[in-house]
Structure formats: structure tokens, C-alpha cells
């Protein structure tokens, strides 16, 4: 898994609530049998019309906004368990997703793929939106070790929470299978004693 430590980047703002995994990657694009290439279809039906032409009013088609940080409204990633949603976000080039609330399964899938989901208070989220819409070149800085996200232009900073185990996985690029496999003896013992 890719390592994550620090990042300073412009952001792509998506102030929509309850963005479900069917919007992130529609089911008809789940037929691939590898993890690659899903970024092309990230937010497919919001990005392109029925004739596959870019919809000019969608933020990802607006060259003013770019960067490695996606900022979205509350309850991001609700719906299906498809990890393809996390793969699409990563493949497109986002390393961080910020929202005021994440759906559980999406959050886990993101962490398992080296994408950092950062939950911030609604007020902080709205502040990011207002700063970025006023000045699209303004950036955010994320420091995973210090667990902070900072709006560089205003200096506003928030200390986010992350499970300490998951934090060390991200910083070191480890995944869960290595960890569980190191307990194989206990697993076999558990099975024997049932």
C-alpha cells in the first residue's frame, strides 16, 4: 500500500450531501476484474452527459479547481460496499477526502487503499468551501503524524481523529493481511477451542 505522511494541495470542492457510492462509481462500471482504471468513471454521470460529453457545470470539468484533496458534504460514501469507489477516487488522483461525516464501509475501504478520509466539524467544512470558492488556488495542508488539517490562507486548523493502528498502517504502507497473518497460531488455536 502507498505510504501517506504530509500533503499540501489545492482542493476540489463538492458541496453535496449524501454522496453515495453509485454516484462515485455507477454499478455498470463494476465489471472490471482488476483494480485499475476506475478513475476515468469517477462521478461518471455527474461528469459526462448521455453522449459522453463533459458537463461543463460539474466541478471536475472546471479547470479552476484541481488538486489531490476532495472536499464533500456530509455522509460521503453511503450506500454499497464497493471498494471500486475508493479505487476510483485514488485512481483519479485524490489522496485525501474531507467531509463532515463518512459512511463506515467507505471509510474503511479508503483507509485500506491509502486514501485518507478526514472527518471535520460541519463548521470547518463550510469554512473550507467558502475559502475555496472565494479563491480556488488556496490550499489545504494535511499532516497525518500531527493529525492536523489546515486552511493555509486563513491558518484555521483542525485536529482530526484516526485509529492509531490505521494511522501507522498509512504512514508505513502496511496492510491488515500482514498483521492478521502474524497471528495465525492464535487463529488456529481459536478454531480448535470452539
Amino acid at each position: 500500500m502507498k505510504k501517506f505522511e504530509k500533503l499540501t494541495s489545492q482542493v476540489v470542492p463538492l458541496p453535496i450531501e449524501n454522496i453515495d457510492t453509485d454516484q462515485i462509481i455507477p454499478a455498470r462500471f463494476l465489471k472490471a476484474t482488476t483494480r485499475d482504471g476506475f478513475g476515468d468513471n469517477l462521478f461518471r454521470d455527474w461528469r459526462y452527459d448521455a453522449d459522453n460529453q463533459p458537463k461543463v457545470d460539474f466541478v471536475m470539468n472546471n479547470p479552476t479547481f484541481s488538486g489531490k484533496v476532495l472536499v464533500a458534504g456530509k455522509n460521503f460514501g453511503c450506500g454499497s460496499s464497493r471498494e471500486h469507489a475508493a479505487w476510483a477516487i485514488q485512481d483519479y488522483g485524490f489522496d485525501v477526502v474531507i467531509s463532515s461525516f463518512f459512511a463506515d464501509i467507505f471509510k474503511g475501504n479508503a483507509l485500506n487503499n491509502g486514501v485518507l478520509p478526514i472527518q471535520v466539524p460541519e463548521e470547518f467544512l463550510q469554512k473550507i468551501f467558502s475559502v475555496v470558492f472565494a479563491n480556488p488556488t488556496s490550499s489545504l495542508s494535511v499532516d497525518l503524524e500531527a493529525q492536523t488539517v489546515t486552511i493555509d490562507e486563513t491558518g484555521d486548523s483542525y485536529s482530526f481523529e484516526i485509529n492509531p493502528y490505521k494511522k501507522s498502517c498509512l504512514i508505513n504502507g502496511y496492510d491488515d493481511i500482514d498483521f492478521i497473518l502474524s497471528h495465525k497460531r492464535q487463529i488456529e488455536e481459536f478454531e480448535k477451542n470452539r
Partner: protein
Amino acid sequence: MGKTLVEKIWDAHVVKREEGFPDILYIDTHLIHEVTSPQAFDGLRKRGLPVLRPSQTVATADHNVPTLNQHLPIKEELSRYQVDMLTKNTAEFGVELYGLGHPYQGIVHVIGPELGITQPGKTMVCGDSHTSTHGAFGAIAFGIGTSQVEQVFATQCLLQQKPKTMKIEVNGELAAGVGAKDIILYIIAKISAAGGTGYFVEYAGSAIRSLSMEGRMTICNMSIEMGARGGLIAPDQTTFDYVEGREFAPKGEEWDKALQYWKTLYSDDDAIFDAVLEFDAADIQPMITYGTNPGMGIGITEHIPTTNSQPESERPSYQKAIDYMGFQDGESVIGKAVDYVFIGSCTNSRIEDLREVAAFVQGKQKAENVEVWIVPGSKQVEAQAKEEGIDKIFEQAGFALREPGCSACLGMNEDKIPAGKYCVSTSNRNFEGRQGPNARTMLASPLTAAAAAVTGKIVDIRQLI
């Protein structure tokens, strides 16, 4: 202090608990399907690992399969490839597959229970968020991503933070025409599509107790639509009667031993939940959704809430949803014309659902303006429906009973609702584009869907029974 049902089952499956780490949780049963497993099998190959416990893993093909002419090769190339890949992977890793053509094939959350694989007290996972369905039997069951599918393949365990617990009690009697689907749509409308996030929900109360196993599965199935990863109901005689005698249920002495354990699976009186909610069954009317998440539901006689009645920061998203659906603030949905009716999905495609629909449509005719798709949850449901003559009742009414699969719930196969069309659907998600690009989904019970099928519009089922 007593334990909740979730705690009892969870604690019995912890292989290792260590401060600062998620629990290593043992998984009894791993269900897989063609869409979320190929990358996990690939991962095993890259690591040079086997499936640790293939006998605790069961596969079926459901998401991509056509619902007509299943005996012919799948026409759509990518779907066919994905289904073939499942056949190849399960053969290579020694996993049982109930694939197309097998008498046990069907939607993964329908076949687990009907084969007796789903049992009280188990931990069960699947790369599908509706795995919560199996909680109806008093099991800890939840959806996982593909990296976790690979984890379970490799270790028969998952690294999981113990969830918070919520109890939702529904007491009292349901009115005629109101069923399990209405209960769960009502709860989600009350607490929102994110109201259960971070929790496992235990459903309790007399209205829940009085439901059949099929009804309980409908309730637990949609737990994820309020954000709860799992939902469960303490097992009782209804549960035991359903499980007994099924193919993979314990038999003889094993049954007696299992039953003794299962009878200990309930939340203790002094157990403490992190949250408790109570609802009165008498307040619930037939429900229908008007928006683009399952929390946007109303009683059938209620009006669509106005944008201005929403919190200010949520108004743009709300307006976007209402516009997508082609509705107006404050209007009633009764009398709205319907283009499609879909009766199926892991929420409502079991034999009881089909019986209920058949009993209502018997002697009636499909409305001319409506296309009706009835998709059984499994080959066994299909066979049972034919044995009971339900297929004939549908035929006389002008619909066909199709072959099993996920179908128009998510439109991965050919069963897509065209852009702009309205579909009354017994499935679980009304997200934008869920049933096809720009399709408009209105979630409802099998009875409300059946009423739409014969009248061609949204009606209050209570006026027709």
C-alpha cells in the same frame, strides 16, 4: 452488567483483543459473488496464499446475470467475463459455487438463509452492503470491501473495531396493508440515511417479533440504508422453525446442541445500548420514497416536504434530489403515473413476497402504461412459486416471472429503467442512476408495488384491500 446480543456474539468470536488495535474477529461464513471477489482472488495469487477455510466460503453469481434465458451464454461480454472469472477462481481455490444453472443459485442474501447456511450466533460477511440481511437470524452479518474479502480469504478473520449498539423498538400492531418494508422505510425516514452510522442495530418490540423470517430479513437488509453496518433480531421460535431441516442446518444431536446455545442469544435485561429509539407501529402507513436517498420517504398520504422546511445548508442537495425526481415541493405523490414496477432484490424477492403480490393481483390485470418485472430471489424461490401456481397468476395478470438475480435493483445486467422513467421498486436504494442512468426510483413495499402494477399509478394500497 449484562451484555447486548451484539456483544455476546462479538465477544465469542474475538481471536485477539489488544489495546490500541481493532479486534481480530473470527468469521464463520464468507459469502462471495462475482463483482467484489476477482481482485481479492488476484491478491491471494500475488501473495501466494490459499483460501484458508474454503469449506466456510460459499459463492454464487447474482449481480450480473440476465433474468431471461439463463440457460444461454450471457450476451454482455464484460458480465460474462466476470461470471466466468468466478467459476475459474472458485475452482482454483476450492470454493463451492452455486453458479448459473445450479438449483441453489440466487441472490447471495436469499440463498444463505434458504439453504440453512445462515444461523443464529454466527459471524458472516460478504462483499456486499446488504449482508446485514442475515442479522434477521440473530447473526452478526455485515458488508465488507474487496481488500477485506481478501483478508477473510487469507485468514478467516477481519480486523474490526467493535461497533456501538443501538436498539430500535417497534411496538404495537401494524394496520392492514402495512408490512415489514413500510416499517424499515419509516424508521429510515425518521432517523435519516446516516442516522445509524457507527452502530449495529438490534430491532426489538412486539411489531418486530410478530414478523415472519422473510419480514425480518427485509428489515435487517435495509439497516445499511440508515448507515448501520449491521442489524439483527434476537432468534426465537420463528427463527428456529425456519432454520430446522434446511440443507446446511445442524441435524440430530448437533441441532439440539445448537438450539441450546441459540436460546442464550438475546440482550440481557440490564444490557446497556449506546442509543435506544422507540416507534409505535400504529403510526406507520404504507411508505414510499420521493427523493434520491432512502431517508427521503413519506407515508403514502403525506406530501413531499418543502425545500424551505430543510436546514439551510441542506437545501441545495434537497432541491437537487427533488429536481432529479421531477417533483414539486409540497405535492402529493398519489395519482402519479408509473412507467415500471420492479418486484425483486435481496430486500423483497422471497416466496412470501411473491405470495403476497400474487394474492393481491389474482384476477386483476396489469395497467397498460406499466412494464412489470418480477424477479425471484433464487432458483428455489422460482421453483416454489411455480409449484404453487404463482407464475400462472402473474401470467394471467400480464406479467412474467423472470429468473433470479439482482436485476433492476442496480441495473448491472440488461434490466435497466430508461432515463426519466418512474419505477416503483421493492429494492433498497433510490440513488440517482441506481436503476439506470437518470432513472427515477420510488421505493415501496411489494403490496404498494403490486398496486402500482395494476393501476398504473401511485395508490394507497389500503383503499384496494
